[in-house]
């Protein structure tokens, strides 16, 4: 953990509880998770976050995120 930013918060991502740094936006969260924002669709607390809003929507303690993408299917 980076000592300059010791504060983390607990959020749920794809059903798993994870500690992430405090003060992230959705855009930051995707970067933190090493995900390409153009390939992922984000749902925050059951509401879809539009891609153009990724930089303006925050990540707060207790939020539940679903990060989805397209996989092979029939």
């Amino acid at each position, binding site marked *: 953990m980076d000592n300059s930013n010791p504060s983390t918060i607990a959020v749920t991502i794809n059903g798993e509880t994870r500690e992430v740094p405090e003060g992230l936006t959705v855009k930051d969260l995707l970067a933190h998770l090493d*995900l390409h924002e153009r390939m992922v669709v984000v749902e925050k607390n*059951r509401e879809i976050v*539009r891609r153009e809003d990724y930089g303006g929507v925050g990540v707060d303690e207790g939020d539940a995120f*679903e990060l*989805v993408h*397209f*996989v*092979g*299917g*029939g």
Partner: protein
Amino acid sequence: MTVGADTLAASDTPLEIAGRTFRSRLILGTGKYKDNQTMVEAITASGTEVVTVAVRRVDLDRTKEEGVLYHLDQEKWSLLPNTAGCYSAEDAIRYAQLGRAAGFTDWIKLEVIGDEATLLPDVDGLLQAARELVDEGFKVLAYTNEDLITALKLEDAGVAAVMPLASPIGSGLGLLNPFSIRLIKSRLSVPVIVDAGVGTASDACVTMEQGVDGILMNTAIAAADDPVRMALAMRQATQAGRLAYLAGRMPRREQAVPSSPTSGMLD
């Protein structure tokens, strides 16, 4: 005369769905391939212009290369997201909205499943989801059973295409009820795409001979020993069945009729 692609194109009208036209009458799923290279080669061999994809959670602990979009050239193939795995209208609508939010298309292959063992559709949930998604501006291609009344209700709901099954998803049992499929086709104005159950090329050919507008398949190609060869076989079978339908088959007779002249025989 050489029968090439131009001759085939000239002998048929294009498939039109929601205002878009396609030369190929095949739609392919992208699931269950042993690897992505085989998938891309099979899709290419099939000649399809539309491929289905599923919406699933990103696996946070794996590489970011696993999404299917890394392998599909969207200049070549239009994406058709599905709601596979959804057992309620509410879930299907949620998946459809996620699929649209990816930013590629407002088309959705709507599935609302009613039973795990058969994967047969839940008609109540299907109709509810279809109406709601049409209201939200989606172009809905609805997977359904081979029931005329449900098909008519889906058309009334404003779907872009009705997609009755040939037999259960992944079963490979082929076209079990040609009568019902013909009946649906004869009564609907929107395209009828048979979705699910085709097992091999003859199934695709017989299905197209019923006069339907197209076929959607996945497992028959992905689970073949050689998917690329099977994809080519399906392409040709779909074309053959379509041409045979357009050509109009001879009547069935219970008695033989000689093909050669009966006069001019030697004493």
